[in-house]
């Protein structure tokens, strides 16, 4: 029973879930969005600072949720820091496909650093637990809303 659960809850994910990184408000955020998953009551706020080159100079989040949604948010903040707005959106799309589609071709994201891709792969373990996909994608969905200037999003 532990084997399949270990695929979902890898050590890195449990660690980020318990001790999320960049878990703070950004006083000088240029964009923020609220995300919530009405099924489980998870609520997140994602804060971004976009610099003049439209790069994500800083990314942070606050809120509450399950281990998967908190870990995903935490890892996302690390992955996205320094990426451009468009790169962030491409990563989200790639990650979403990884979580929902079989046989996703990771080489589509080949121009990104290996570490980022490895982390996305790890999180995409939710593919085997369809009901948990929304947990993993909530922060990303919220991030996209923030860069697009929408303030409130819901996974419903």
């Amino acid at each position, binding site marked *: 029973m532990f084997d*399949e659960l270990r695929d979902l*809850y890898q050590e890195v994910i449990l660690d980020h879930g*318990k001790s999320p990184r960049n878990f703070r408000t950004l006083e000088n955020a240029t964009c923020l969005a609220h995300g919530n998953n009405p099924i*489980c*009551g998870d609520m997140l706020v994602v804060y971004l600072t976009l610099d003049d080159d439209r790069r994500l100079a800083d990314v942070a989040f606050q809120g509450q*949720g*399950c*281990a998967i949604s908190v870990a995903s948010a935490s890892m996302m903040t690390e992955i996205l820091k320094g990426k451009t707005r468009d790169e962030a959106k491409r990563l989200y799309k790639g990650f979403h496909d990884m979580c929902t589609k079989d046989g996703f071709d990771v080489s589509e994201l080949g121009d990104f650093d290996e570490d980022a891709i490895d982390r996305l792969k790890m999180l995409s373990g939710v593919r085997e637990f369809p009901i948990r996909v929304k947990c993993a994608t909530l922060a990303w969905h919220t991030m996209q809303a923030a860069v697009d200037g929408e303030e409130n999003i819901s996974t419903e």
Partner: protein
Amino acid sequence: MNKESTAVDLAQQAAAGDNFTAAYDIERIRADFPILKQKVYGKPLVYLDNGASAQKPRQVLDAMNEAYETYYSNVHRGVHWTSQTSTEAFEGSRKKVAAFLNAVSENEIIFTRGATEAINLVAASWGGANLNPGDEVILSHMEHHSNIVPWQILRQQKGIELKIVPIDDDGNFLFDEYQKMLSEKTKMVAVTHVSNALGTIVPVVDVIRLAHDKGALVLLDGCQAVPHMAVDVQALDADFYVFSGHKLYGPTAIGVLWGREDLLNAMPPYQSGGDMISSVTFEKTTFKKSPHRFEAGTPAITEAIGLGAAIDYVGAVGLGSISAHEQGVLQYASERLQAVEGLRIIGQAREKASIISFVIDGIHAHDLGTFVDRAGVAVRVGHHCAQPVMERYGIAATARASFGLYNTREEVDVLTDALIQAKEFFG
């Protein structure tokens, strides 16, 4: 029909005074529910999500199949044999529901799509016709969303006020606060009989008595009550009572609104169309009396028949026996779960039905749900469509084990062991 001896047969023998000694033959009962033989992830299914929906005994499945295979047709319309037979079975179920609730007459039983539709019907029809700006409707803090939102919509439409009876930290309905809220302005008290999120049994007899003293009507949401205890609407002196079929071991898409006949016949139709009219011309339509006034269109025929079979089943096992059995399991679970470090039961009211909501320090309910699922255990996680309750306790979600007539102490052990493992896993 399968002729082998079933729990129902045995319970009927017991009721008839036959030599029947086993107090509660759990193995026989479990054998009546085909799904309980199912394995999930190679482990026996431990189904503890009865509060969301209960499993169906073979007797219900057989009754529905028999209808489809031997006499199915539309009801109330045909002169042919199938229609007459279907109508008899459908109306026979209405009689069974009436007896189940001890209604005065089957004319007081309206079949709906579920409890949600039943509450919407009362709010829209009775509320729409009888409530005026400034009138007050009292709810409790423990209501399911289905007994909140219809009244909020009515508030928007009619300018009524909603008052909410608070609960204490254990989930007890605060009766003194309720008493203070009642006034001449109170027109309706719509409260749950048993809380789906906390298990609290609300002291509805006193709630009704005091409401009536002020001239207010009372609607009880009985979804979580009817599977666990005998309900007598006349003894309660209620005005409206609603429940859903699928939580009572019956099918989905069928629910019941019971109302006092005089109230129902004074209410305008909720939906309109065929089967609910006495006569239609383009100038004027006259409506049938209850229940047909409120059953526009072709009803859920086979589902109503299935509900009738579920009521027979529960009646044969006996709600007294079911209640005693479930209270034993509840008591056992309440003690056994203490073995899980950091587990806190949410809802410890003085009187509870067999529902346990809980949280575990440091583990989100959703992660718990996924973890125990892999041990074959089905529990509900989330806010249970009762977000105000979660807010009251300052939590986002709980895990909830809700026990039905087929659950056992061994299953409580499986849950407890899975939770202990979850605690180790998530640390």
